[in-house]
C-alpha cells in the first residue's frame, strides 16, 4: 500500500527493529487545505519512514504550520486522506505528540513550568481525576531530560524564550509518543536550548521514534535531519536529505530569493551527514 517511489529511499535510513514501529507513522495523500477561498496547500502527499528525523523547509507562507495543523485535524481540510500508523488519528492519538509554536500561548498564565509539562499527561489521567505525585515525578523527569529541572517551579513568564520552548518540548516528551510533530522548535532559541533539543531528537531516533520538525535554518538542515520535505504550497521534493536537499530543489522552493539561495548554496557545499 505504500507508494513505491518513496519507500525505495528508505533503504538508507536506520529503521528500528521493533515491529510496532515498522508501520508508516504518518502518510498523507493528496492533502489540500484552503483558508476562505485561498488554497494554502495543494495535493500534498508523502510517507514518513519510521525512525526518521524529517525537516520541513520552505519560505514564509509556504504552509508549513498549516500542514502540521491540518494533519492533526486542528484545521479543516478541503480534501485528502491521512493515516497514522496505518489507522486514523482518533485511533492513534496517544502515539502522537505535538509541540506548537511558542508564541501560540499567553506565557503570563499563572502556572509554573512543571504544571505545563503535567498537561501532557492530562489525557492519560482522564476526566475529573487529580494529578498525583507519580505524574508530577514523570513530568519532572521530562524537564530533566531537556535540562531545566531546576526551573520546575518558576512561573512561566519568568522563563527565557529558550526555556519556554524546552518546557513545551518536555510537555510533548512526557506523553511518550512514537511520532512527534514540532512547529519551529529552533526558532529564536539560545545555543543551550538548541543543543538540548538536538539531544532529544537524537534520543528519539535511537529509540526508533519519528519526528517531523518545521525548520527555518537551511544551513543546519543536513546536519540535523536525515529526511527533508521541501514545501511551498506543494511538495517540491521529499526524500533523504542527501538526495533531495539540492541547490536545484531549493531554488524551486524559494524561487528568486537571492540571499536565501546563497545561504542554501553554502549549506549544500558544506553538507555533512550526521554520524
Amino acid at each position, binding site marked *: 500500500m505504500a507508494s513505491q517511489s518513496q519507500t525505495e529511499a528508505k533503504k538508507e535510513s536506520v529503521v528500528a527493529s521493533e515491529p510496532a514501529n515498522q508501520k508508516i507513522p504518518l502518510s498523507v495523500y493528496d492533502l489540500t487545505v484552503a483558508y476562505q477561498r485561498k488554497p494554502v496547500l495543494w495535493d500534498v502527499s508523502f510517507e514518513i519512514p519510521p525512525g526518521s528525523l524529517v525537516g520541513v523547509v520552505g519560505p514564509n507562507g509556504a504552509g508549513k504550520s498549516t500542514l502540521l495543523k491540518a494533519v492533526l485535524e486542528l484545521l479543516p481540510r478541503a480534501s485528502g486522506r491521512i493515516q497514522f500508523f496505518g489507522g486514523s488519528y482518533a485511533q492513534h492519538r496517544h502515539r502522537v505528540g505535538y509541540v*506548537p509554536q511558542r508564541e501560540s500561548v499567553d506565557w503570563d498564565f*499563572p502556572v509554573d513550568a512543571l504544571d505545563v509539562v503535567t498537561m501532557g499527561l492530562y489525557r492519560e489521567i482522564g476526566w475529573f481525576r487529580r494529578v498525583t505525585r507519580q505524574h508530577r515525578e514523570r513530568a519532572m523527569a521530562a524537564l530533566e531530560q531537556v535540562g531545566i529541572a531546576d526551573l520546575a517551579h518558576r512561573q512561566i513568564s519568568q522563563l527565557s524564550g529558550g526555556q519556554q520552548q524546552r518546557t513545551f518540548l518536555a510537555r510533548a516528551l512526557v506523553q511518550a509518543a512514537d511520532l512527534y510533530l514540532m512547529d519551529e522548535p529552533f526558532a529564536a532559541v539560545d545555543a543551550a536550548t538548541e543543543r538540548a533539543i538536538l539531544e532529544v531528537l537524537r534520543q528519539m531516533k535511537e529509540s526508533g521514534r519519528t519526528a517531523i520538525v518545521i525548520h527555518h535554518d537551511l544551513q543546519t538542515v543536513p546536519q540535523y535531519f536525515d529526511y527533508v520535505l521541501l514545501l511551498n504550497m506543494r511538495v517540491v521534493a521529499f526524500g533523504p536529505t542527501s538526495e533531495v536537499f539540492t541547490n536545484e530543489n531549493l531554488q524551486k522552493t524559494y524561487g528568486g530569493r537571492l540571499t536565501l539561495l546563497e545561504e542554501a548554496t553554502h549549506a549544500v557545499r558544506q553538507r555533512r551527514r550526521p554520524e
Partner: protein
Amino acid sequence: MIGLEWLGWLNSADDFLRVLTLRDYNTRIVVIGTGLLGAAAGVIGSFALLRKRALLGDALSHAMLPGIAVAYLLATLWGGEGKSLPLLLLGATTSGLIGTLCVLGIRHWTRLKEDAALSIVLSVFFGLGVALLGLIQQTPRGHAAGLESFIFGKASALTAQDAWLIFWGGLGCVLLVALLFKEWTLLCFDETFATSSGWPVVGLDWLLMLLIVLISVIGLQAVGLVLMIALLVIPPAAARFWTDDLRRLVLLAGLLGCFSSLCGAIVSALFPRLPSGATIVLCAGAVFGLSLLFGTRRGVIFRAWESWMLGRRIQRQHLLRAMFELGESTGQQAAPAPAALEFSQLMSMRSWSSAALQRELTRAAAAGLVVRLSAKQWRLTASGQQIAARLVHQHRLWELYLITHAEVAPSRVDRDADQIEHILTPDMIARLERLLGESQRAGSVPSSPHPIVPPVEGLGTGEAAR
C-alpha cells in the same frame, strides 16, 4: 432634603448596630446570599478571565434584559402573576444565551472583529430591554413590577428562597469548577494542544460559558445585570496581584469576591437608597485598588520597591568595582590596606555625575564600605575591599565566559557583563568557575580580558566643561 435624611440615619445608631451585628433575619439572608454569590462569581470569573471571556460575559448579562421583560409580558398575558421569579430567570437565561450565540455568529460569519460584535450585541439587546421595560411601565400594574431592580440590583429584596437559590447554584458552579479544574486549565492555557490531545474543546468551552450564564442569572437580583461583570472579573484580576499560582488564584478570587459582596451588601443595608449592585462593585473596586498597590507579586509598590532596590545594588556594585579597579590600575592593590583614591579619578571610571558619585560614596560610607580620608579622597575599608574583590571576580568570570563560550566581541563584553552580573546567583558563579577552571582559587581575581579605561589626565578641564 437628602442631607437631612442622611442625618436621620446617622442618628439612629441602633439601626446601624442592628445591621452590623446581623440581628435581623432579613439582613442575615441578604448578607449571606450575596457573600455566597461573590465567592462563586470569583471562582468562575477566574476561568472567564483566563479564557479572555470578560467582555463576552458583559454582553451576555446585558442581553438578559429583554428576556426578563418578555417573560414578564408573557406571564401577564396568560393572566398569571407577572413577577414569578423562576419564569423571569428563565427568560433572562434564554435571551442571554441568544445574545452569546449572536456574538459568536457575527464573529464567525462576518469579517467583523470580536469587539465590534460584542458592542453591537450588548447595546442592541440592552436597548431592546429598556424599550420593553418602557412598554411594561404603561401597563396597569407595570409600575409595581419593580423590574428595574434587575438592572442595578436590590439585595435588600432577597428572600430566603433567593438565598437558597444562590446557595445551590453557587455550590453547583464551584463543584463543577473543582471537577473540571484540570480540563479548564488546559483549555484556557493552550486550546490547540488541548484539541490535539483529544479533549472535546468545544464542549468544555460551552460548559464554561453556560456556567457564566448561570452565575450571572443567580446574581441578577443582588448585583443587577449592568454590573454583574464586575463581580466576575474584578476578584480574579485583584487576586492576580498576589499570586502566580492558579489554584491559589481561584481560591483567593473566591475569598475576595465573597468579602467585597459582604461589605457591599452591608453598606447597602445601611443606606437603603444606594443600590446594592453599586456598593458591591465599589467595594470590589476598593479591593482591586489595594491589591494593585500592595499585591506581593505584581503590586505596583512591590515592583517599584524591587526595581529601586536593584538599582541601589547596581549603583553600589559599580562604585565598589570602580574603586577596586582604580586601585588595581595604580598598582597599589597588593598593599595591605587599600589605596586612597582621588574623587576626580573615580569620576573618570564611569559616566556618572559628580552628585551621583558623591551620594553613592556617602551611602557606602554609612554602610562601612568606604571611608572618607579628606575632602576629595576616599578609600575602601577592609570589608569594602573584600566585597569589591568578589564583585570584580564575578564580573571578570562572566566576561571570560561571554568571550570563550558565547562568541561575543571583546569590546562589547563589558556592557553585557554589567547588565547580567548583578543578578548572578551563587550557583551560577560556581558553575562559571568550574567552566573556566578558576575553582582552585575561588577568591582570586582573574585579570580583566580587556584594558581597563585608565584615569583620564587633566580631568579637571573636563569637569569645568560640564
